[in-house]
């Protein structure tokens, strides 16, 4: 058994943590969220320069052949810094789809764009009526000569506004929720027939609704086997879950630390509020929730780095359940213990709470994964 990180991994963590401390203060982030573009292209370039985009991706994509453990380290630091850039979408999700479904040319060409940070990709998988089920694909792909015509809508595509391309799931055959018949297409944002509605989310990210109307894409933009994309999508989801769980662990770590610090300094009735036993117990519960979340995020990352698909799926479903539960305990108690101050937009704690809350609905919530878990053996 070995829970230790390599020296390279420790260096990467330290470097990233320093960069965030210097250039990604809470005030910087606040400004970025409120800015016209809603993110920090300059920081994105610095992340790329540090090699973060290369870290978890294979050599044939221009990566450093790292794995989900590297992704975990990066995402945890992003969580601590409330980072809003679309790393999860472009590097983890699109990276996973291209790695697993792409042919050699796609891996080389698209991979190079991702690992250099030069272009941003966002997965456009989920649809409104499918809720958390990625097999629910009503978007259709009709063959038209050597092209495909795509028609349908994609819901809450995180990273949409700053993306250059989308990886869209569409159905060439089968019923709406069938796992077979789903294909993946690389669609550029300026393609005729694609319109987007862009917005900021309640936790400061950027997302889009996608509307595809007779979007013509060539056969060369199909990623993987026609009709056989579901296994790749499932794998992407697991990697995304492992990554977002790591982000949540970062968020929870800071939320706990800030709450403890606040409780030690805030005085009422002539004593620090940390001396009230009921708050002490609440903070102990927060710590327990964090430790459980850490363990499950680690398990998810380890299984994602391995090659047992069943174990991976089970670990990721379990991790998403646990992270959702821990995020709720930590988020709600953090605000409660801060009292009125916790309600303000000015303090960072409310932003940690908001992000922690919203993670539950990304890639399936507690109930969804609890049910999935129960159906696996």
């Amino acid at each position, binding site marked *: 058994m070995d829970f230790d990180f390599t020296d390279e991994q420790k260096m990467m963590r330290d470097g990233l943590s320093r960069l965030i401390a210097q250039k990604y203060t809470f005030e910087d982030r606040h400004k970025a969220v409120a800015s016209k573009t809603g993110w920090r292209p300059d920081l994105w370039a610095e992340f790329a320069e540090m090699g973060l985009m290369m870290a978890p991706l294979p050599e044939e994509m221009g990566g450093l052949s790292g794995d989900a453990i590297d992704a975990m380290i990066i995402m945890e630091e992003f969580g601590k810094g409330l980072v809003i850039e679309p790393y999860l979408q472009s590097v983890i999700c699109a990276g996973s789809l291209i790695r697993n479904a792409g042919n050699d040319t796609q891996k080389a060409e698209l991979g190079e764009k991702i690992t250099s940070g030069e272009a941003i990709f966002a997965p456009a998988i989920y649809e409104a009526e499918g809720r*958390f089920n990625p097999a629910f694909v009503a978007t259709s792909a009709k063959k038209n000569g050597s092209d495909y015509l795509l028609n349908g809508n994609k819901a809450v595509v995180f990273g949409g506004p700053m993306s250059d391309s989308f990886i869209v799931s569409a159905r060439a055959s089968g019923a709406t929720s069938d796992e077979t018949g789903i294909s993946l297409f690389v669609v550029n944002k300026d393609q005729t027939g694609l319109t987007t509605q862009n917005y900021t*989310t309640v936790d400061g990210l950027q997302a889009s609704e996608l509307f595809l109307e007779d979007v013509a894409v060539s056969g060369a933009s199909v990623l993987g086997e026609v009709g056989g994309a579901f296994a790749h999508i499932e794998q992407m989801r697991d990697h995304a879950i492992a990554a977002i769980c790591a982000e949540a662990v970062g968020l929870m770590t800071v939320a706990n630390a800030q709450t403890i610090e606040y409780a030690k300094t805030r*005085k009422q009735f002539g004593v620090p*509020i940390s001396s009230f036993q009921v708050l002490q117990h609440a903070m102990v519960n927060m710590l327990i929730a964090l430790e459980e979340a850490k363990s499950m995020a680690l398990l998810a990352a380890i299984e994602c780095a391995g090659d047992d698909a069943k174990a991976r799926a089970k670990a990721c479903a379990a991790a998403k359940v646990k992270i959702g539960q821990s995020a709720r305990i930590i988020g709600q108690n953090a605000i409660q213990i801060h009292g009125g101050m916790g309600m303000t937009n000015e303090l960072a704690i409310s932003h940690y709470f908001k992000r922690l809350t*919203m993670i539950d609905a990304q890639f399936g919530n507690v109930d969804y994964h609890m049910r999935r878990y129960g159906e696996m053996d």
Partner: protein
Amino acid sequence: MKLTFTPEEIAFRDEIRAFIEQNYPQNLKGVGDREDLTKEDYLSWHRILGAKGWSTPAWPVEYGGPGWHATQKYIFGEELARAETVPVLPFGVNMVAPVIYTFGTPEQKARFLPAIQKGEEWWCQGYSEPGAGSDLAGLSTKAVRDGDFYIVNGQKTWTTLAQHADWGFFLVRTNSDCKPQEGISFLLIDMKSPGVEVRPIITMDGAHEVNEVWLTDVKVPVANRVFEENKGWTCAKFLLAHERTGIAQVARSKMGLKKLKKLATETISEGLPLAKDRDFKHKLSELEIDLRALEITELRVLANEQKGKGPGAESSILKINGSVIQQRITELFLEAVGPYGAPNPRAYKAEGGNFAIGPQGAPMAALNYFNVRKTSIFGGSNEIQRNIIAKLVLGL
């Protein structure tokens, strides 16, 4: 013992319902989902009720109350919630008014009560300070006597909707050489007085609902002190007990639950309504049962009050459970809308986006959930309520 209404009570309900239907302002319909209510929006409905004599259901008849018994008050609250009317804000009607008619001078009663009843003046509550939240008696805003005036200096915070207020009721320190509770006075302050400055605090949902109120050499006539000097704590405690019953918000929560169930039948999850999802249904039922228990508990408290037993420590039970139920409703709303909790309507509206994203009910789901975290913090936090029950009910 019974829970059914008598024919008279049913007739009363119908009268209320018809009045609301005929008189509720058109432009304020469906206001439950709006977050941009103006002062005028709030007051216009208050004035209509005031003219009818219905804006102050709990007041004694001699001061302009309608003389309703507990069941009628309950029915009235239910009907307002059912029609999703703009609330009549509590600061005047349910907070300062009972203090004024219980402890005030005849002049104070005559000056302030009619304007509150009619909805002519807006009140805010100046209790909390940066250093005095749960420990309210630790407040340090000072009032120094100068002839017929007090000169007030200090800072209040979290003052709800003070940006609209004409008047505020403030707890101020008039004596520092005694037990903290024994040196506090209750002052009514004209918010237009020189030296009063209201600064916004934006909450995490992006709303401007609370404020800081800075007081610099504010001159307040001694005639605006309610009850004796240094006896303000008596008024404060009396008022807090009143605040806590209203805070349970049972009727509004019932309405919220109804909307939540409707949303669950309309929200399609993998081709089926969410209302058919066993896990979600289970949570809805659990919530409904808890709400029912709260409702009957509140009715028992009201029945006791009717017999002249004022609201005591039981109101703390109502506050705890009422606040948590409000929070759970918004939490389930957010869960119901799933991924569509994410879009921030304040942001896309600010950018001129005139669209709604996601199903009906989705746009405000997350912001409402964030906002309602306040209910377990304000009005005396739920931890403080438990301390009160432990001490006063259990004698621990």
